[in-house]
């Protein structure tokens, strides 16, 4: 697995370079906004990646807490499966807002359940916590990219840097929550960190829908989604966007992987040092 890391790194950098060329040169220029629109190829993929990483962090945090005893673990598994089934049923029964396809909602639900069980299979205990740290940190980085590129685009197009719109506010609050999550991890010590950080992650995840609804009635300026049924995006632009998304996803995965390995190694070193000082008190300073 370790040998695959540099190969994956090489593939990712090639993809990123190709995506950069496509986004800046090959993609057609937008009619009204001109070249400013090209930031879209970085803004949107970063946003998707950040949200994906935060949901991975949420799943890992839930698992860290429920897997501390067997019965709650089993209960959580059934709840996750039930939620997946309910999402599939609701997607086809309830009338969804325009532009959202039932099949995409259902497949998102199934993918979420699948990811939950994949995490469950490959990570446990301390490794699960290391996974949570790495996704949160990389997620904050991508969320920062979203929050920086957004105003850069908004200034020439809207004439203002920032507005308290539903998407902007939700993303910003999410960023704040995860920064406080990282601060909590930094300031707490020892074995409690994992538990209290997981609790905070769950609170943060519960907060996001509330933030979203609390800004519901604020006037919105953010462009509506341009992909899907009601979308009006040029197919060439869509291709570049998806290519960029794949490149960013690989990049995020690479960063998470590196961060995860670093975290696991750091813990091993800490453990070894603690053990050594137990065995031979004189050797430790």
């Amino acid at each position, binding site marked *: 697995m370790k040998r695959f890391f540099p190969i994956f790194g090489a593939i990712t950098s090639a993809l990123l370079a190709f995506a950069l060329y496509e986004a800046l040169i090959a993609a057609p220029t937008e009619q009204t906004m001109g070249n400013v629109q090209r930031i879209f190829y970085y803004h949107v993929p970063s946003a998707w990646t950040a949200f994906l990483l935060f949901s991975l962090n949420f799943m890992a945090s839930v698992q860290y807490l429920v897997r*501390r005893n067997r019965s709650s673990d089993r209960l959580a598994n059934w709840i996750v499966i039930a939620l997946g089934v309910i999402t599939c049923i609701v997607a086809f029964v309830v009338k969804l807002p325009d532009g959202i396809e039932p099949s995409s909602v259902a497949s998102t639900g199934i993918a979420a359940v699948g990811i939950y069980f994949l995490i469950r299979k490959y990570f446990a205990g301390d490794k699960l916590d290391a996974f949570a740290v790495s996704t949160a940190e990389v997620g904050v980085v991508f969320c920062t990219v979203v929050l920086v590129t957004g105003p850069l685009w908004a200034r020439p197009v809207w004439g203002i840097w920032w507005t308290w719109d539903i998407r902007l506010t939700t993303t910003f609050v999410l960023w704040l*929550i995860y*920064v406080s999550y990282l*601060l*909590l991890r930094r300031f707490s*010590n020892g074995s409690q960190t994992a*538990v209290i950080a997981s609790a*905070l992650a769950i609170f943060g995840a519960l*907060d996001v829908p509330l933030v979203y609804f*609390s800004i519901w009635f604020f006037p919105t300026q953010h462009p509506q989604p341009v992909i899907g049924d009601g979308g009006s995006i040029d197919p060439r632009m869509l291709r570049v966007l998806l290519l960029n998304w794949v490149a960013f996803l690989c990049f995020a995965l690479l960063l998470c992987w590196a961060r995860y390995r670093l975290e696991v190694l750091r813990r091993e070193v800490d453990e070894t040092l603690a053990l050594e000082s137990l065995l031979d008190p004189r050797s430790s300073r």
Partner: protein
Amino acid sequence: MSLFRSITATSLAKDVRLEWRSKDAINSMLFFALLVVVVFSFSFDPNAEESRQIAGGLVWVAVLFAAVVALNQTWTRELRNHVLDAYRVSPAPANSLFLSKALGNFIFVCVLEALMTPLFILFYNLRALGPGWQLIPIAVLGTWAIVVNGTFFAALSVRTRAREIMLPLLLFPISIPALLGMVEGTTAILSGQYSARFWIALLIAYDVVFTIASLFLFETVLHAE
């Protein structure tokens, strides 16, 4: 269930009695909130119409800042003489402890609000143009929102190195929807321009979600080692 209730009541009575005798939290909260009011009224000099628009924000920011003072004391008080460790090993249900602490803080912050409201009316020359009685549900729900989250996060931050700093850093981001509900609801009532019903509903939803979440997770956090 009766055991749960009696433990909660005993623990709550202990907290209230401690506070009644020392008046640590309430005095520092009151003075702090008074300072915030004075500083704000120096920095803005509004007429009656402007103050209606900004008072909702000012009053809740003052209460939120002051509440942090009381919330920080909640668990640090129990660190002395290892009372928290005693709670941890006792067979009493963890949630009764949490509820008693949250109710105690709720009482303190409500007392603070009752004493601060006349001052605000005086300094900012306020008169509600909308239905004034709706301010009461907003105050009660908003206070519970701050207090239930604050008590939980105080239990988290008491485990960290920088206790007193950590609580606002955790509490403020999460309580943004509640704060928005309180501020917008109060402004709606004071200015009488639109209905506060949506904001009350938002506060109810917030309270329900986070009360349940806190009760679910508190035991895990208390026993985290």
